């Protein structure tokens, strides 16, 4: 579903601040794969997400989605294939527009926008049904502005509108990191439900090792722009936080040290 070939990306080349964010990354996601990516700050996780979504173009390498080379396709064109949820709960929805208008915006992701009405009677019914799956009562607040919702509600809505049009690929960029533990747990549960129900091919970046172990069928650990560890299926199910940390030390020969607190 997604293939990354030899992706390299450097910032500030030729200056003292040069930083190679990604070094020859190769990764393939089969349809239905749910891959979690962990790694410390500066490991290149966000850069990787931005290259897949088209916010950044790689220096070398190719991004292939469902057999199509999209390396040079602009962000908004590529969005036809990709659903995204961001870390910031404010980022995934339009605050001054109503809940149903936000759904209508997302509904148009895969089609050309026209001068037809964004919210029709038929669509409204569909939006209501879809919102009911969240069990947050948002289906009764279709005309409320999204800016009035709480952070958790907004992130749940972001997740819903990113997925209800069944994208080929779902990108989750630390989408629970800015929420309090209870809300984060709610969003994690919703993520699990939605991805399973729609069988979405998913790539999730997280800082939280527990979450990375709890979700998905594959796990990738990144460090300094490279994929340094990968586990899938049964192997992944047997992993624990301690084992992951040991693995990291074995490969890199250094302590997670300051990161440990953040990651656990």
């Amino acid at each position: 579903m997604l293939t990354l070939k030899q992706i390299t990306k450097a910032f500030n080349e030729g200056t003292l601040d040069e930083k190679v964010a990604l070094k020859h990354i190769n990764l393939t996601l089969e349809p239905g794969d749910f891959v979690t990516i962990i790694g410390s700050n500066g490991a290149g996780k966000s850069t990787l997400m931005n290259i897949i979504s088209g916010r950044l173009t790689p220096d070398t390498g190719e991004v292939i989605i469902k057999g199509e080379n999209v390396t040079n396709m602009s962000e908004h064109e590529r969005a036809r294939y990709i659903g995204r949820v961001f870390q910031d709960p404010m980022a995934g929805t339009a605050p001054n527009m109503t809940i149903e208008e936000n759904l209508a915006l997302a509904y148009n992701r895969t089609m050309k926008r026209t001068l037809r009405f964004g919210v029709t009677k038929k669509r409204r019914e569909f939006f209501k049904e879809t919102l009911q799956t969240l069990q947050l009562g948002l289906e009764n607040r279709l005309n409320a502005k999204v800016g009035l919702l709480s952070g958790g509600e907004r992130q749940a809505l972001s997740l819903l509108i990113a997925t209800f049009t069944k994208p080929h690929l779902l990108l989750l960029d630390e989408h629970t990191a800015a929420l309090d533990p209870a809300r984060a747990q709610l969003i994690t549960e919703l993520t699990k439900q939605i991805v399973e129900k729609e069988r979405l091919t998913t790539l999730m970046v997280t800082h939280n090792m527990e979450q990375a172990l709890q979700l998905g069928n594959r796990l990738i650990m990144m460090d300094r722009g490279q994929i340094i560890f990968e586990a899938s299926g049964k192997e992944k199910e047997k992993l624990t936080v301690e084992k992951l940390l040991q693995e990291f030390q074995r490969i890199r020969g250094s302590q997670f040290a300051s990161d440990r607190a953040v990651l656990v």
Partner: protein
Amino acid sequence: MLTALFSSVEAGLLYAIMALGVYLSFRILDFPDLTVDGSFVTGAAVASVLIVNGTNPFLASFAALLAGFLAGCATGLLHTKGKINPLLSGILMMIALYSINLRIMGKPNVPLLQQETVVTIISDWWKGIGVDQALANIIPSFVPKTWAIVIVMFLFVIVLKMLIDLFLKTEIGLALRATGDNKKMIASFSGNTDQLTIVGLGISNALVAFSGALIAQYSGFSDIGMGIGMIVIGLASVIIGEALFGARTIARATFAVIGGAIVYRIVITLALRIQFLETGDVKLITAFIVIMALILPQFLSARMEKRRKLQAEKRGESVANSQTDYKSV
């Protein structure tokens, strides 16, 4: 006095079209677009020159609308493709349009006094249907020269407002609003924010130029300096309108902007009746009105907040008192 107020309502309705354009850029796209000072004159210039050369005034006004659309698109291109900051894109386009407008007109002022214009056509047609006489019988105390402009323009502006309201509910309209509300979000839902910004600014300036074309025909000339401070007048209309009439929904906000444009004209007319103020002071008064409209709501809401808290505290005390009363009983 009444006559002066009447003509300020007339002018207000014509300027309301410009204010709706400013609303689209300033509020919907969140883009403070200074192109307006230039594109208003572009509209006036294109219409005037075409009319003087014998073009049908309706066609000439439509051409003005198209010219404004192009000017807005140019600003949009500067910002999106040229990556120039919004304010600077507008200023650059405004200054470029000054020269372009002079080229269009060929001289700084084009009189339209003996020409057939949209205004004269409407007035002549109006005379034929005799509504003025009927109204003079109903309201004998106030007989203006003609009701034609006020009534026809009112209906036109309302239709225009409703078209804008409807447009902002279409799929493209929603994407346009999202571009001003959350660019990152709409980009992740396959909205081409560059294209939307360009089209949005185009529509905004099309309205502004159309308003300029009508004002030129209403006042009987177009002048190279007639756009100076137009963006501030537009902002004044938007801000005053929103403060007076509210802006909870799009339909409400566009109504408020029209109201704001009319109220602004009335305020200026009244202010100029004060003895020591001169016609040249209009821009100063405008700036003052905008500043007041921006500061007063903050000041008022701060006071309301304080009063609300004070009352809440008092209520808290009375609750506490009633509790002690209860204990003593």
